[in-house]
């Protein structure tokens, strides 16, 4: 029962710091004795996390493991938030610079209608459509290029150049071409997500075992069969890498693109407008939405990946 004690100790130290935050706003940092409680809290929280991890790895029930598995990052986030709150309130950081987490949360809840409209505009339209088209085209181009040395030699350098074009540069042009609505944002996302997919898929397609290729060659396989039977399975881990990296890149791209002209809805619009209005709490609430959406889509992809690449050494060794 050693770890339970340690976990409890960690929680107690966290609660203590919370108590300080809520009751001695602004003054406690001037008292050195209380200040030392902060590292105590950090160490306590760390031990809690270590013990929770061990617990999660040894627990037999799947449900319990899931639960504890969520607890650890939650605890980590909680510590960060407490530190954030401590700093903001303790040092009286102006609200126009950095609002406290509690303020952000309140704003999030009270403005949920505006935020959900923005989310629909930016994520459901621009990000999703752009991500799908961008990943699909990167993937297809990788397939074409991998199969044909001619295309590889002709297109790879050009493709490289075109995909090194920074988003911030293309965003205004896309607005020019595709208008103010989400289509131009989706176009930016397409261009942003294309390259990571291309590079990763190519690397993956080339990561096949040469013995496996020999096997297929003895069957006089067509190229598409080689792809299907060996290259694609071997490339899956790489492809998922790209899908995951892209799921975050896409959101950034769409939001950045909205800085260059939009209808008056959308997460990027909200951020830049509210910064101008000094409503930093609203800005951070939007960031919170972005973080939630990004994390959830990433998590979903990771889940799918573990289902599809169960055979890969990186999964089997665990």
């Amino acid at each position, binding site marked *: 029962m050693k770890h339970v004690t340690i976990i409890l100790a960690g929680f107690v130290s966290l609660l203590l710091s919370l108590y300080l935050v809520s009751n001695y706003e602004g003054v406690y940092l001037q008292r050195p004795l209380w200040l030392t409680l902060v590292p105590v809290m950090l160490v306590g929280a760390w031990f809690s996390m270590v013990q929770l991890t061990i617990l999660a790895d040894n627990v037999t029930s799947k449900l319990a493991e899931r639960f504890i598995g969520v607890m650890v990052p939650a605890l980590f986030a909680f510590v960060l938030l407490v530190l954030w709150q401590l700093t903001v309130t303790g040092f009286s950081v102006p609200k126009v610079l950095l609002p406290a987490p509690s303020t952000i949360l309140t704003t999030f809840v009270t403005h949920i209608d505006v935020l959900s409209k923005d989310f629909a505009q930016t994520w459901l339209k621009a990000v999703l459509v752009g991500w799908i088209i961008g990943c699909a085209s990167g993937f297809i181009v990788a397939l074409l290029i991998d199969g044909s*040395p001619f295309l590889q030699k*002709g297109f790879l350098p050009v493709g490289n150049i075109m995909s090194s*074009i*920074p988003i911030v540069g293309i965003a205004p042009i896309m607005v020019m071409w595709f208008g103010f609505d989400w289509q131009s944002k989706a176009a930016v996302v397409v261009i942003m997500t294309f390259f990571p997919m291309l590079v990763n898929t190519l690397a993956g397609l080339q990561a096949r075992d040469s013995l496996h290729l020999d096997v297929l060659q003895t069957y006089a396989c067509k190229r598409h069969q080689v792809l299907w039977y060996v290259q694609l399975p071997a490339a899956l881990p790489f492809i998922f*890498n790209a899908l995951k990296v892209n799921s975050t890149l896409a959101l950034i791209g769409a*939001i950045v693109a909205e800085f260059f002209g939009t209808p008056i809805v959308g997460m990027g619009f909200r*951020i830049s407008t509210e910064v101008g209005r000094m409503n930093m709490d609203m800005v951070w609430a939007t960031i919170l939405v972005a973080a939630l959406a990004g994390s959830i889509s990433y998590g979903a992809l990771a889940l799918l990946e573990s289902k599809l690449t169960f055979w890969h050494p990186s999964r089997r060794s665990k």
Partner: protein
Amino acid sequence: MKRLTHPLSIDSLKNSQPAALLLVLIALTILWYLAAFWLNSDLLIKGYERRGMTWDVSRLISDAYSMKRPLLPTPDQIGYELYKSIFETKISSKRSLVYHSGITLSSTLLGFLLGAFLGIVLAIGIVHSRTLERSLMPWVITSQTIPILAIAPMIIVVLGAMNFTGILPKAIISMYLSFFPVTIGMVKGLRAPDTLHMELLATYSASPEQTFRKLRWPSAMPYLFASLKIAIAASLVGAIVGELPTGAQGGLGSRLLSGSYYGQTIQIWSALVVAAILGSVLVALVGYFEKRVNRRMGITG
């Protein structure tokens, strides 16, 4: 295996890199001119009609290819602008694109180095500590969902208040964008070793550090280079994003911004072209190191 990827080897011309590249470039140029005409003429016709002017096709064509602020400038307009701002201007001049590329490049490289380093360190931590994996990994991912342009000004303000100006704030934004692909790729790569190889080292009771040096690191190489290529491109984007808020301090980003601000499409496009060239040179550079490392590891072709 070799023959599988050489279905076209009969035709030697088709296999020559310059020929292939040239063909693609010519095709693209033609497409570009067509697109420029299509986009620009639309604009022109609107203008003609608004003013009730009479116009014919030859006038339209010559106007479409010589607009001062076209919707899509033609390659020759961009080429001329590039020539002017690269060769006809002193490198140290603020009107030289070389000067601005230099500014962007320095923060890109600094950010890339910091990002690659941070990314690798995080990956090592995550691979070796279950606690770090469980606690840190989700937040590494979440960090990337925060739109960089939203926090870039804050970073610059905060660092500026701490008297860090110049390339460091921009490099930090580059780092923020570039560490992520490295972390994700390396976590995967460091876990990629063959089970049998891991067991072999277990029989030697090799320390984690030895396992890392002798097995994990070499097997992560393909993943490392794939992510470094993405990271360096992301780093360039970060440097340029970082140049927007500090828009007046030079760099390709500020050229883009001021071009956009004053509607100077030709200026935007030439900055874009330079950025793209810079990006692909950087990616090619990573590719060059990849080849060298591969050769040392006995992987040919």
